[in-house]
């Protein structure tokens, strides 16, 4: 039993932090807010060179063959930097989705391209009703010649506007199925949905009888349920890691500010009202750390309680990050409410991930089903 990072894991975290500290400064995050694509290609290719884009893929597909603990470490750091770009969408949603459900040919087509920085991907897991349960999927797939035609509306698809391929669940006559869709293909419309976190871009993906070829089907027709369940759990845990990083940053900024800001002739950190709030924030961050890395380990190791740990992680961290990042604004006072001060970058990153991949309430219900069996 060892709940600490290995030397390699510490090295990975340090190198990710160093690279992001240098290339993903707050100034960079702000510059990307006004950028049409929302991210910088140079940094993307740098990430390919550093091996981040293929991190969880097998070596034969250009990856590093690492697990979810390592992936969580990377996203933890990206949350801390409020990194703007399609990393999560590409590597976690698209990449892990293909790795879990894709055929040998599909993996060969996409994973090396992702790992080398040539392709970006995403997955469209949500529709207008916002139910994260994959069985709620309403989009349809009908056979058309050798291929399929897809119809439906997907919402909040991360980074679809720059993706080369999007995993799209749709209901075929055989049942819930998964397809690879070219977002620039005929019958597909991508419309931006601009949220408060301008570093995390969403789109609506509208499919109007969009034709996809036979080899766009991922896994057997009607057999997508288990892949989507697994993908959702992994996305939930890795998104929690990103929220954790953002929360940690908010805590660090609050503590730093409380040590320099004076009111009533004293440093505000000497007031228990502030100090106690910061202590609670640290407790939430430490508990979230335990929840994230336990779940990441459990999913990688195939532990008996892996599914439960994933839901525990997402529900706990969603609540904790909201509290920590919100309290950070309170500790800062007025300056924390200004656009100019950087705190809102991290506050918004955590907030934008809070409802995604199952919000706290969704996962709490899964927890109770796991316990009561109903």
């Amino acid at each position, binding site marked *: 039993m060892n709940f600490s990072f290995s030397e390699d894991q510490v090295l990975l975290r340090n190198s990710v932090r160093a690279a992001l500290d240098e290339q993903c400064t707050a100034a960079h995050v702000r510059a990307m807010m006004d950028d049409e694509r929302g991210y910088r290609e140079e940094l993307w290719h740098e990430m390919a060179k550093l091996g981040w884009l293929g991190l969880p893929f097998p070596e034969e597909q250009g990856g590093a063959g690492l697990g979810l*603990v390592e992936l969580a470490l990377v996203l933890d750091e990206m949350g801390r930097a409020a990194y703007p770009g399609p990393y999560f969408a590409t590597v976690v949603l698209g990449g892990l989705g293909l790795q879990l459900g894709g055929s040998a040919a599909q993996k060969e087509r996409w994973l090396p391209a992702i790992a080398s920085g040539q392709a970006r991907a995403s997955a469209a897991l949500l529709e207008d009703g916002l139910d994260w349960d994959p069985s709620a999927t309403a989009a349809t797939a009908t056979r058309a010649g050798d291929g399929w035609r897809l119809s439906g509306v997907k919402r909040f698809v991360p980074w679809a506007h720059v993706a080369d391929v999007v995993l799209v669940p749709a209901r075929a006559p055989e049942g819930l199925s998964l397809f690879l869709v070219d977002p620039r293909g005929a019958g597909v419309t991508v419309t931006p949905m601009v949220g408060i976190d301008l570093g995390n871009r969403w789109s609506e993906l509208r499919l109007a009888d969009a034709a996809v070829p036979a080899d766009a089907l991922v896994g057997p027709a009607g057999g997508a349920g288990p892949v989507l369940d697994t993908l959702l759990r992994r996305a939930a845990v890795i998104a929690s890691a990103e929220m954790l990083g953002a929360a940690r940053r908010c805590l660090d900024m609050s503590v730093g500010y409380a040590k320099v800001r004076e009111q009533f002739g004293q440093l505000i950190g*000497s007031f228990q009202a502030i100090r106690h709030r910061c202590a609670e924030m*640290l407790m939430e961050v430490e508990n979230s750390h335990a929840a994230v890395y336990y779940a990441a380990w459990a999913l990688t190791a195939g532990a008996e309680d892996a599914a439960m740990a994933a839901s525990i992680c997402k529900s706990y961290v969603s609540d904790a990050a909201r509290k920590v990042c919100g309290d950070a604004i309170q500790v800062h006072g007025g300056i924390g409410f200004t656009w100019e001060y950087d705190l809102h970058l991290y506050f918004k990153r955590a907030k934008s991930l809070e409802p995604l991949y199952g919000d706290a309430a969704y996962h709490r219900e899964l927890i109770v089903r796991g316990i009561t069996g109903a």
Partner: protein
Amino acid sequence: MDLNYTAEDVAFRKQVRTWLEHNMPRHIQNLDERRAWHRRLYEAGYLGMGWPREYGGQGARPMEQAIVADEMARAGAPAPTNGLGIGIAGPTIVVHGTDAQKRRYLRKILTAEEMWCQLYSEPNAGSDLAALRTAAVDRGDHFEVTGQKIWTSGGANADWGLLLARTDPAVPKHKGITCFLMNMRQGGVDVRPLKQITGSSEFCEVFMTGARVEKENMVGRLGEGWSIAQTTLGYERGGRALARVTTYASQYRQLVDAARRLKRNGRPIVDDAITRQKLGRVWADLEVERYGALRTLTMLERGEHPGAGGSITKLSYSEFEKRFMELAEEILGPYGQLTDGVPPEYRLEVDTAIGDHGTWAYAFLWSRAGTIYAGSSEIQKNVIGERILGLPKEARADRVGGHR
């Protein structure tokens, strides 16, 4: 990172489980029976496991200690006795005591031949423990102790007390305190039970009027008492964390069973969406406490001490316990308030932290104590803020001058 237990630890766990199956008493009626159970645990090598072998310990790894505590919690085993002897007084003597003190006291703590209590808090020195006023006056060959202590758990049965008393009222308050081992069985010591909101009296008040402490029973040097108390507070905290969560989990399962039987608005409470959300949250919080316990154990296994990090653990679990018990009360309704005449299906079948009172009402009331004893939540937050986050101390009026 590998959160699987090693084959060695799995084997040890199995061994402990088997031993408990064969040796655990079903019910403990009185102190003599608890002492007998305590001795059996000691003889099996399951008590004072982390203490050095030369003083009757096992020199065991933190993981082995945690496994024993965890298996006892899983089996609902009665607690041993002399908790403050084993948890506080003994470790204090191990670290700060003289050779003579170690030889004289340690083994009898482990065997519960001599029972111990902790004489720290006073009516006007709670969170501000260093404000204590009990005086120990040097009378040449001994010290004479006068003052009042409160919240002395196990005081009624104690043979010895680990005492903090003021030996120099002229220096700043943290510097004038000395640590002693005091014989409780003497004329100058009057122990009175303190009835708590639970209706029970696990705690006492202790009145000392010219009580005698031999010079050889001073621990450490004169004026070192505060720093000694700081290093030995919460010695056993890390090792018990896993067991605590296992006890919570056992209580939680009983709560879910009750939620299946009880009804609200015509359907089982367990099917009520709002209750399900609350149950889900408590289970998540409970498991997060378990993950935290595994993190602490990792540190202990590497020979690191959590230090002020222990304050995060304590704050987290004690606040959690209140939320948990509030949910239990909400689900159980008036059943949750019964102290007697409890229908069997609404009993709490678990040995609680302090005794073996099997009611939810008792567990609920006790949950209010956790955020006060051993440093209130407010004190823990000060420790976290100052020692971990490095936030400035508040302006205080008591760091200078003498203390009378």
